[in-house]
């Protein structure tokens, strides 16, 4: 018997659009590129939360500066496959986006197009976004636009326990919504109450970023 989603009445664990992109992923790279120059840029990321991996390749039209191709491969679950498929469609449809425009696409924009994902699967869909940032950086590096590179570096928030903003981001992606919940996972700021305001700000920021 099928499981029926109480909110949508759909009989699958994921939405029909997710299902469609999962079973018929768009823009998959079937064969790895034979030489380095086939694509203009390349990036690979892994999700520390669950261990999924994502690899991306991009071609940029030299005249229009638009994304002409965005190909990918993943060692990941249904959400990762469907979200990346949709992400690649969004960036390449209608003649393709400009790079800076593409970098503004948020994970929840992809979610909306997908008709939603179960909350605890959101972190899987973020992988496409992160792989693209890395791919874009690769392109900026190759085209000497060093000022545009965004390094996804971690900033230490709790020096006692060496906990960074990335750790808090991961906790939010794994479902924590409040200071208490994040502290239960990370113990961040316990014993350093002066850090609590900043931690709460970060939690609000990431909730807004991924669930807003």
């Amino acid at each position: 018997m099928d499981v029926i989603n109480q909110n949508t009445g759909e009989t699958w664990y994921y939405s029909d659009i997710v299902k469609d992109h999962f079973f018929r992923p768009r823009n998959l790279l079937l064969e790895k590129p034979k030489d380095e120059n086939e694509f203009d840029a390349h990036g690979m990321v892994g999700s520390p939360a669950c261990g999924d991996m994502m690899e991306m390749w991009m071609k940029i039209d030299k005249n229009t500066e638009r994304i002409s191709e965005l190909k990918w491969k993943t060692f990941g679950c249904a959400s990762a496959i469907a979200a990346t498929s949709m992400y690649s469609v969004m960036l390449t449809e209608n003649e393709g986006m400009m790079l800076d425009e593409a970098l503004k696409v948020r994970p929840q924009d992809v979610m909306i197009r997908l008709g939603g994902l179960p909350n605890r699967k959101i972190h899987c869909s973020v992988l496409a976004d992160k792989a693209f940032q890395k791919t874009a950086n690769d392109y900026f590096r190759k085209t000497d636009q060093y000022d545009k590179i965004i390094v996804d570096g971690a900033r230490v928030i709790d020096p006692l326990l060496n906990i960074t903003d990335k750790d808090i981001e991961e906790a939010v992606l794994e479902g924590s919504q409040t200071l208490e919940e994040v502290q239960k996972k990370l113990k961040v700021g316990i014993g350093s109450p002066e850090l609590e305001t900043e931690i709460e700000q970060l939690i609000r920021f990431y909730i807004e970023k991924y669930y807003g």
Partner: protein
Amino acid sequence: MKRVYLDNAAATKMDPRVRETMKPYFVGEFGNAGGLYQEGRRAKKTLDDARESIARNLGARAEEIIFTSGGTESDNLAIFGVADAVRLEFCLGTSFHIITTKFEHHAVLEPVKQLEKKGFNVTYLDVGSEGIINPNDVRTALRPETILVTIMYANNEIGTIQPIREISKIIKEYRTQKHVAISSSSGGEIAKWPYFHTDACQASGYLDTNVNNLGVDLMTINGSKIYGPKGIGLLYRRMGTKIKPMIYGGNQEMRLRAGTENISLIVGLAKAIKIVQEARITETKRLTSLRDYFIFELQKRIPKVVLNGHATKRLPNNINVSILDIEGESLLLYCDAKGISFSTGSACTSDSLDPSHVILALGKPYEFAHSSMRFTLGRDTTKEDIDYVLAKLPTIVERLRVISPIKIDINAKSISHPEAFAGKLKGKAKGRNYK
């Protein structure tokens, strides 16, 4: 569409004979077994008969059977029950010790962890690359203050069978030595410990569960894994084994588990145990050959399929393989669309997002857990079913391998693409985090 259900380690279909046995107790025979009038006396008689029947099947005495709400409660009762009893008997400051394994079911691991937080010391035994405990490791881990050894009879994910008899012998020897050593000085009370508990939920359909052959003091069994009802289980407690209840509020179940007895579930459990005991030998034979055929053909038809756990010292219905380079949830959902049900140790399907602690305990990198699939056969599984799966699986695996960016070495001992996690590698991705 044809459906092939291969997740019998998660839930089994109720036997129609069990359902028939239960039917009268929903409406007609509704009495409370505590009542002195006719309805109550009839309920009491049914309850006593069910307990008696189960006891016979396990080689136990009727008063050694405690009915609970299932395997999880029985495990909790065994662990907290022993801990509470020993704490009441001795001064609270004493630091007691528990021995368990790294790949127990969470129904055992979590209660043990709670006790660890309260000051108990715990030894988590390694399970080796084949998923079988070395009894000598138990011997080495035993200490004078050890109160409980809890080791599962057969693992729920990889089906490996643990040497319960050898372990119980070691524990008995240890208790005897301790008794001799202590009785000369002070009382000898502490010599009763350690007790030996085993979770036999997965094993009870296929292995010998005679408590005297096994030599256990406590044993967990539940209904839903043996074609019985869900929501019912039992804890076998050998006479004299000191435990405290977790649920108070009545004198039922030898005062160890309060609450009105659910007669329909109890007779269902008794019937289910009786039926699996009768069918055990023939069913074991049938499924063993089906299992070995499945494993052989899988490895023949699909490259890079690694069997998790010992090849033969495993339950006759368990096939757990890592189909490398593909993620479990994706395969599960593609197969589900083709009518095949099974489960995976992939992090993506767990609420905690942790990959299977069982596969990691075998010492394999997390990618092996992420790619692990468990197929568990059951009474309805036929060779045609297996052939159907074998026909569908290779195409699906091939498709997902085309999607996958990774190519794991079949002998890999560590994660394949550390650069993908650069700067953010945590325990989980390294595959040595044990949870």
